């Protein structure tokens, strides 16, 4: 009998270990988990190579092809060294313009995210609101942002306001749709438990819908934040009088056929996008450690 008991206990322990083992992002104890893979055992270090080597090879190939094309077509695209030289010649100018674009993205996207999420909350709680205003939002969504941007510049002048609005507009819709899906996609049985406890609407939102919607919200952010950069750049394109921002820099430099500056600005827009998406991934790992990630629509 004793033997059986011991075996039973072992089985449970192994089971528990197996569960923890498979869900590597799950923490031990109350602590929130750090990034998985920070302490990789020496025997598994080769695995890291497999992660960064393939994309590195791709980048090197692209760079080589680019350089060859640039050397063959000097008046169409600049060489990589020319772009780098341009960046190094006047880093202050690029930095100032990058900050302007970043400001547009941060303020515009924050506004779009908040408004999108709040309207999603209202729609999730009151279905009639969805039927009432969703068609309007669909109309806004299908209107090309490139067409709206000049109209907004006319309405709001050449200052920062039209840029904020365009950025917020492009962020708004993916946030709305994903947040709404997340707020609706609650576990029915957990909802049943809460309803049997007569939990209020607010309590169900606070304890279940809001945290449960986060995987979808972050999926929405992954779509929306790169779009925010598009929105900011497009708004700068059309605001001809406003000279600041990487988008403005692209237009002005291109008009002057200054290829190194044009492409240096484009590269910086890429860098901005990568930084924002990386920051998002960092926050997601912190906030969403409990989600296995596979349930998230990417």
């Amino acid at each position, binding site marked *: *009998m004793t033997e*059986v*008991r011991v075996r*039973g*206990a072992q089985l*449970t322990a192994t*089971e*528990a270990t197996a*569960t*923890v083992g498979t*869900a590597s992002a*799950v*923490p*031990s*104890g*109350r602590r929130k988990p750090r990034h998985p893979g920070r302490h990789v055992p020496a025997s598994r270090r080769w695995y890291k190579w497999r992660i960064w080597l393939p994309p590195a090879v791709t980048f090197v190939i692209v760079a080589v092809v680019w350089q060859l094309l640039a050397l063959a077509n000097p008046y169409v695209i600049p060489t990589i060294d020319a772009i780098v030289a341009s960046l190094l010649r006047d880093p202050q100018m690029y930095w100032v313009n990058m900050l302007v674009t970043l400001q547009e993205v941060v303020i515009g996207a924050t506004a779009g995210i908040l408004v999108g999420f709040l309207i999603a909350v209202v729609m999730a709680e009151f279905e009639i609101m969805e039927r009432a205003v969703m068609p309007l939002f669909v109309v806004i969504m299908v209107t090309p942002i490139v067409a709206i941007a000049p109209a907004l510049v006319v309405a709001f002048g050449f200052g920062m306001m039209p840029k904020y609005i365009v950025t917020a507009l492009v962020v708004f819709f993916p946030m709305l749709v994903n947040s709404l899906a997340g707020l609706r996609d609650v*576990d029915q*049985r*957990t909802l*049943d*438990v*809460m*309803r*049997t*406890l*007569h*939990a*209020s609407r607010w*309590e169900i939102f606070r*304890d*279940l819908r809001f*945290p*449960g919607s986060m995987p979808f919200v972050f999926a929405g952010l992954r779509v929306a934040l790169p779009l925010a950069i598009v929105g900011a750049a497009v708004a700068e394109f059309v605001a001809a009088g406003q000279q600041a921002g990487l988008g403005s820099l692209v237009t002005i430099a291109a008009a002057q056929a200054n290829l190194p500056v044009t492409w240096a600005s484009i590269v910086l827009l890429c860098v901005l996008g990568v930084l924002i998406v990386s920051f998002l991934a960092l926050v997601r790992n912190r906030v969403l450690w*409990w*989600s*296995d990630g596979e349930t998230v629509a990417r």
Partner: protein
Amino acid sequence: MPAQQQHDQQRLAHEAMPLDEGGPTRAPLAGAGAGSQAATEAAVQAAARTGGVRISNVSKSFGTDESRTLVLDGIDLSVGMGEFVSVIGPSGCGKSTLLKVIAGLTDADGGEVTVDGNPVSAATKNKMIGLVPQSPALMPWRTVLDNVTLPMSVNRGANGGRSMRDPVELLESFGLGHAIDKYPAQLSGGMQQRVAIARAFVFDPSVLLMDEPFSALDEMNRDQQRMGLLDFWQSNRKAVIFITHSVPEAIMLSDRIVVMAAHPGRIAEIIDVDLPRPRSVDDYATDEFRDLEGIVRAKLRAVMEPGAADAAAGGTGETR
């Protein structure tokens, strides 16, 4: 781990879910539990008169007028305080719908359900109903402890005058003392379901509704959880309505077994389980248990229409 256990078999079961039967905050048996949570003096008196769950002439149908199907047809059932009643029947007999009606999740078309004398709507307002769904339905972003304390943090208006259990102590008695700070994803399926059961016990409800809580577990695990629940319930008597597909499970746990028939969903027979308590895994092997198993299976076969036989085969095919 209590040292006073007499049988090896019992000790096995306690390994899975140890008990501390002499715990200081352990509520006395059913009567006092029901009284303490009634909101008003009148409700206390009503509880004394009409304790437990009373279901009278409940009917429910789904669908539009042309293609209306009767899911529940005149269900009458009383579950006394501290009584364990299992509901078993083929798929489509409406047992889950019945549970939803009692839980206040679905309104019946006709009839009446009362919990300790209160209509269901008042019973949920007073947090008198504990629900254990089919899946654990835990919040993956909350620790085990925070999941179990959920019922205390919602609908706080109903907390007054209620004897809440100490959630840590409760989890310890469920054999989850080591897991209170873990997250659901770190636990096995059986442990998760135990957390869900602890969540239903923690606010000391009048009645526990369990919808096939062990059906997603493998057979060995299921038996372990079943005996753990039985042990806990035997020292914490509550009215329980337990939906199951398993005949041995129904016999092992219940005071009475309600056999339902389908199309329309109705009670075909109520079978008394007169096995003495406390019960243990030894009882599976007794002649009385086997006799009862034969009776329940025969009844289930009788209520099954020819076409429905394969649908229900999985539920009754469990052998021992």
